[in-house]
């Protein structure tokens, strides 16, 4: 076990939705060590861009030595990434971060926006009964059909064009779904909502955070979040999203 710093080859890439791309990378032995909720640092082939793009792992295929990443164009680096074709080789560092702590208890999986992709591999690997809640802006949905293979899928959209109008918590409440553990990834306001909901219902919630990163391995201290407990590195209350996370017990994170 360990992190791999490799040249990975793109096996395939396709566009899934507006600004959302789906890439499969041959990553060798990294694949068999990757866990749901972990991420990879992807480096684009452009010397003017020094930092890696941290992208969550959407799918793991140990047999074919591949990982799948589904990402949104968020700037020039991911825009460049989206132009690469099969056969292009990229530097990739991973697997990084801790991943979800998978429990065999009735689960609610919640993904919002570009926080949806990491929930797919989790949905696949969690063997328990589960409800999957996906939040989109509008009818421009992605990955929804793939989730349906693993459990009941509820959808919320901001404009109400598909499923519940509102956010993912509105969908959970409207459908009165129950579970013992919530697993969630999405934008900060959504995760705040998940934390509040879990507290209200007395549920465990594991939330996956996003923050601007540099090293991706816990050394530079760029991507910290405020934590309730003193952190293990600096002994203040700053946990490192890239190394101590990105998945945290919601009780642990102070927004």
């Amino acid at each position: 076990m360990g992190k791999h710093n490799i040249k990975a080859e793109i096996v395939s890439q396709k566009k899934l939705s507006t600004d959302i791309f789906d890439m499969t990378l041959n990553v060798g032995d990294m694949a068999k060590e990757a866990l749901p909720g972990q991420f990879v640092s992807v480096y684009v082939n452009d010397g003017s861009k020094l930092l890696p793009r941290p992208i969550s792992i959407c799918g793991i295929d140990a047999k074919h030595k591949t990982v799948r990443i589904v990402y949104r164009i968020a700037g020039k680096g991911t825009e460049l990434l989206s132009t690469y074709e099969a056969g292009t080789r990229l530097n990739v560092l991973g697997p990084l971060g801790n991943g979800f702590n998978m429990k065999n208890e009735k689960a609610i999986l919640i993904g919002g926006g570009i926080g949806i992709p990491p929930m797919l591999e989790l949905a696949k690997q969690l063997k328990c009964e589960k409800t999957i809640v996906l939040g989109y802006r509008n009818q421009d949905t992605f990955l929804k059909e793939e989730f349906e293979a693993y459990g009941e899928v509820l959808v919320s959209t901001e404009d109400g064009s598909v499923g519940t109008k509102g956010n993912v918590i509105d969908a959970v409440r409207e459908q009165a779904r129950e579970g013992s553990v919530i697993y969630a990834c999405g934008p900060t306001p959504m995760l705040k909502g998940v934390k509040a909901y879990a507290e209200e219902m007395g549920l465990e919630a594991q939330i996956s955070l996003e923050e601007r990163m540099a090293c991706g391995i816990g050394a530079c201290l760029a991507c910290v979040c405020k934590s309730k407990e003193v952190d293990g590195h600096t002994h203040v209350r700053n946990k490192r999203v890239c190394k101590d996370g990105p998945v945290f017990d919601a009780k642990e994170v102070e927004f």
Partner: protein
Amino acid sequence: MNLGVEIAGVSLKNPVTTGSGTFGSGEEYSEFVDLSSLGAVTTKGVANVPWEGNPTPRVAETYGGMLNAVGLQNPGVDVMIKRDLPFLKKAGAAVIVNVCGRTVEDYIEVVERLSDQPVDLLEINVSCPNVKEGGIAFGQDPKALYEITKAVKEKADQPIIMKLSPNVTDIKEMAKAAEAAGSDALSLINTLTGMKIDIEKRDFLLANKTGGLSGPAIKPVAVRMVYEVCSTVKIPVIGMGGILNAEDALEFIMAGATAVAVGTANFTDPCAAVKVIDGIKSYMERHNIEDIRELIGCVK
């Protein structure tokens, strides 16, 4: 072939160390790099007590560079002594500890605590642009720099390296002040103060508004400053600022630097420092250079 160099009486097996703040205390990178193969590990800045650092976002990418405003988050010298220094010793690395503080007393407390520790050199950070007190305040006025250098030098057991800021009108004046106050060596450059604005959000990228610019974007400025300083003072210089590869490192060495530090490049490739060492070796082979010291300051 000799790659060894000497800084203030301390022998380094090669001239390549790490830029403070880009390599932690080495532990995270030890998975990728044999720390004992480096000339030295330069640690992230350490203060007398733990510092929380700045709010996030703390980093932003720029064209050919990056801005950071981490704000010197660090666990304090006690944790470093208990956890990081024994680790580095076991790894067989030469160690340069970067020291930061808000007041002169803070710096002195740290160097005194480190006096009996396995530390080879002390790099005194008087050039961090991201903290309100201390840091750069000592590094932008020759008189203030002279005073703090003298005060730290008096109490330090290991040789001291004052780390200079490029955010000054004339870096030669700063170098002279540090040398006159007894600094054993100098390192330069720290980051250049910069800013990035998100035009969609109409807001600053960094929570701190400003941050320190590093990476290849600043390299020509750094090489020029190293050249100016090496032409002005007699003490050895560790050159840094945007070194990505051996070619970059050799520019600094030819400009007069006795050693170099690889910083932001660690984020682009965790093995960057080792690749710089290997690249210097192959350059020397290609050009039949027996001793790296032949190249130091060879461009006049």
